[in-house]
């Protein structure tokens, strides 16, 4: 029956292929196809005819290279580097098809995750089974649909590998999980954010084969063989991907492309994280200060007063934030979670929880975070959500606000019905199915009111605002409102998730005593 759900999803996704959205990511990937196909390997990370230079690790470049061999049968012109913003129908068809085909990885991964889901005994009809709900929540994930198929990225493929790796760990096949994660890291380095969870988990639960009776580390059970196995996997995959570039001495160039110094704490649309709130507070304080004549308008930095969401947001009252500060904050935020799986490992599920916390923590405190990164937390969290009541409540909150924060990605009038309908579809389904699964309401009234407030925000941004005079004087208001409102929800979910993790840690400790 899962396979039937697959077909459903595949078919529906194809419907969207008829629609081409003018997203820059489309051109980015076309450019990379062109670069990897037409130029020799030594030029891949030096090429900069287009502004969208190759900034993913080499394994992704090899992936694009293999895709380009198929692409040449569709339209040879798209593989010419000079053809910037080339969008023939064959190109569109090929690119969309490539996303759909690579989504097969995602579908397989979902199938594997569903197999590992623990469920209560008792016969339920198909629609009520946790694994069906999980499959639907993952395959129909609004964020993934929007970002991949309308906006255009290969996230389905990448998240498929991530979920598959998680599934392998849940099934106890740790070496495969490690291999998959290394491959993933070499495909897109943003997953470095969750590498600590993997590292500590594998070190603690895989390299140390046994635990003491109280759950603490038994140093004597350390298995060098396993460590060497893990190490060799990491090194060999790394060699496969980076090897040619190290041999050519291009490693610094590659690294500079992978980690460019991007300007701005937030990018043009503030991702709903802590820094959005920080910016908001700073702006509010400065406005308040000017009104109360405590501050001199002329002394404030220009950027903060003239416009709204510019990238170089200079803080006027609160201290400025630099990349190193964000790094420290991120590390501090994930430290307790990582320590908890070292001290009291709770198997693969504890690892999964820590992974979600790492992903969410890096989203909350990272530098120049894109709102799409919320998916890195939402997708793995779905697995936990169908197994525990409390997680389901947190999941609903996180998912609804996280998905809503993706709305500004699609801003044309044609896409408005699609995003609203899909959002309604996913939200309605997630609420009713999880409610039925756990028999009862999952959110308290305050949370429900907050989520209903999202409707008000949407009406404000899409209906009230364009018809009001503020459209010209304060052009950034919709983005600002969306960003700040959602960051409240996301932060709240983060705190609740942490509380639940630490509480579990606490009960474990109590159990040992």
């Amino acid at each position, binding site marked *: 029956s899962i396979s039937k759900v697959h077909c459903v999803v595949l078919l529906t996704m*194809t*419907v969207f292929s008829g629609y081409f959205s003018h997203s820059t990511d489309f051109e980015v990937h076309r450019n990379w196809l062109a670069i990897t196909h037409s130029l020799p390997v030594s030029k891949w990370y030096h090429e900069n005819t287009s502004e969208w230079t190759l900034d993913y690790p080499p394994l992704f470049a090899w992936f694009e290279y293999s895709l380009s061999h198929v692409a040449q049968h569709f339209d040879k012109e798209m593989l010419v580097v000079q053809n910037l913003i080339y969008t023939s129908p064959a190109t569109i068809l090929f690119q969309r098809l490539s996303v759909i085909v690579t989504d097969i990885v995602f579908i397989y991964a979902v199938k594997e995750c569903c197999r590992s889901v623990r469920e209560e005994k008792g016969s339920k009809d198909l629609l009520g089974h946790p694994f069906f709900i999980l499959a639907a929540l993952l395959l129909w994930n609004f964020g993934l649909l929007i970002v991949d198929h309308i906006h255009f990225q290969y996230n389905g493929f990448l998240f498929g590998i991530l979920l598959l790796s998680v599934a392998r760990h849940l099934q106890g096949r740790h070496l495969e999980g490690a291999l998959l994660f290394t491959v993933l890291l070499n495909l897109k380095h943003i997953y470095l954010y969750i590498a600590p969870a993997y590292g500590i988990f594998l070190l603690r639960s895989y390299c140390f084969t046994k635990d003491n009776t109280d759950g603490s580390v038994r140093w004597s059970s350390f298995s060098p063989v396993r460590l060497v196995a893990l190490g060799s996997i990491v090194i060999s995959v790394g060699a496969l991907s980076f090897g040619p570039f190290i041999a050519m001495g291009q490693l610094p160039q590659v690294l500079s492309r992978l980690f460019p110094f991007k300007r701005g704490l937030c990018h043009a649309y503030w991702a709903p994280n802590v820094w959005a709130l920080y910016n908001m507070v700073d702006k509010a304080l400065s406005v308040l200060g000017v009104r109360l004549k405590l501050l001199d308008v002329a002394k404030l930095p220009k950027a903060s007063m003239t416009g709204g969401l510019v990238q170089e947001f200079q803080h006027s009252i609160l201290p400025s934030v630099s990349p190193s500060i964000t790094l420290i904050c991120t590390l501090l935020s994930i430290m307790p979670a990582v320590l908890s799986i070292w001290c009291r490992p709770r198997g693969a599920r504890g690892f999964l929880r820590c992974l979600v916390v790492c992903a969410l923590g890096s989203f909350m405190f990272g530098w120049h975070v894109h709102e799409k990164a919320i998916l890195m937390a939402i997708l793995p969290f779905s697995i936990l959500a169908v197994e525990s009541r409390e997680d389901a409540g947190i999941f609903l909150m996180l998912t609804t606000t996280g998905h809503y924060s993706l709305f500004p990605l699609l801003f044309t009038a044609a896409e408005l*019905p699609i995003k609203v309908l899909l959002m309604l579809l996913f939200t309605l*389904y997630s609420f*009713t199915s999880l409610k039925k699964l756990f028999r009862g309401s999952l959110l308290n009234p305050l949370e429900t009111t907050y989520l209903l407030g999202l409707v008000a925000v949407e009406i404000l941004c899409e209906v009230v605002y364009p018809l009001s005079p503020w459209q010209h004087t304060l052009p950034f208001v919709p983005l600002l409102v969306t960003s700040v409102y959602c960051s409240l929800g996301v932060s709240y979910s983060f705190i609740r998730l942490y509380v639940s993790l630490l509480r579990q840690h606490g009960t474990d400790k109590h159990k040992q005593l």
Partner: protein
Amino acid sequence: MENWSLVSICVLFGLTARWAVSLNSYSGAGKPPMFGDYEAQRHWQEVTYNLPVHEWYFNTTDNNLNYWGLDYPPLTAYHSLLCAHVAKLINPDWVELHASRGHESYGHKLFMRATVLVADLLIYIPAVVLYSFYLSEGSNKKKVCTVLCILLYPGLILIDYGHFQYNSISLGLALWGVVVLGLGWDVLGSLAFVLSLNYKQMELYHSLPFFCYLLGKCFKQGLAGRGLFLLVKIAVTVLVTFALCWLPFLSDPGQILQVVHRLFPVGRGLFEDKVANTWCSLNVLIKIKTILSTDTQLYFSLTTTLLAILPSSIKLLMKPTLWQFKLALVNSSLAFFLFSFQVHEKSILLPAFMLPLFLKDGLLVPYVVTSLAFLFFSIYLLSAFEHCSEDKLRLGPYRRLLICMPRMDLGRVTKWKFYFSITAMAGLSFMSVALAPPDQLPDLFPLLVSVFSYLHFLGLLLYFNIVQIAEPLQSVRKNQKKSN
């Protein structure tokens, strides 16, 4: 999960599919000077907004009937007027007299698509939900599946949201008529159907069953008492509704004649293009169009149509139950489609058959996807194959007819026939798209598609007629529950 959430999900899904198809091309996109149905609808908004009512159907200096003149009944005109008022609020350029001809823009396309969606949402979709829940049999889950399958029916989606028409309004109103009749409110049902008829004259296909069903009900209740009262009530409703719809035109008989002349263009010949009806297929063997004169063609088609629907109508008159009514609707529309005059392929709303049309509109991908999705859903959700036994298919009468043939499982035969048909349709679709026809036979593929479809329709007509007629007149108590 509760019903309401499942139904909402189905409706949302249907709406998403509709809007996704909307984003594709429409009929006549970028093809001056005439463009297509999209331009026709836009032109009607222009005409109805700018010109006085008595000029809408006439050829005047401001209204050139050769350029997409109004050829639907008044309700379409009123609907266009309403849309035009909205359009004027958003962007007056869209309905500027003469100046807006051939206007194509991103905003306008969104507006037009939105009008279809709104009409669909207000009229057709509620009718479908009500129909599935009140008038179809089976468990709740089955009813939800029915909703989903009907909402995903590719023919309607592709024609309304792809090619661009407003079939959902007329079909929706007719469906409201069926639902309301099924609930026993005869007067309201006839009102709904009259409205539907006044939106598109194509609904005449369904008119005879409505007529016979209601008349039969009156007869059954006894013409001396309640039956007569019912008859009078219905007749009055019908006449009043017609009068209200045609109010602006009633002042002058010339107006009425002109409108009727526009609605039924008898000067145009037996058929145009490749249509899967009898005349077109017959034309392959005997060149009917050239042998008979236009008048003879008209009478000939009229007689054959009436003959084709006679059996089912009489049966309905004698036994006015809901099941008979549903069967009669199918039979009547099939008969009309197959035998009447000047039929367009859109009248059948059957997607596989309309493939050449979709290819012209650039709608190949939506066609493939929606057809596959629909087939998948209907086969999987409605477990079509599990109900493929002889009994369920009511193939009893066939068995009696084919008494001379060796004993075979007709259920299995039907199943295999279905597979064969699907494969043949897929093959024809593929050939139409991928291969070029030989030079001597440039119309080979559309012709093959239409003949193939014609044979199917003929077969369906025979099947449904036999099913309807073979039902016993006096139903036993036991059967009463089944023959809903």
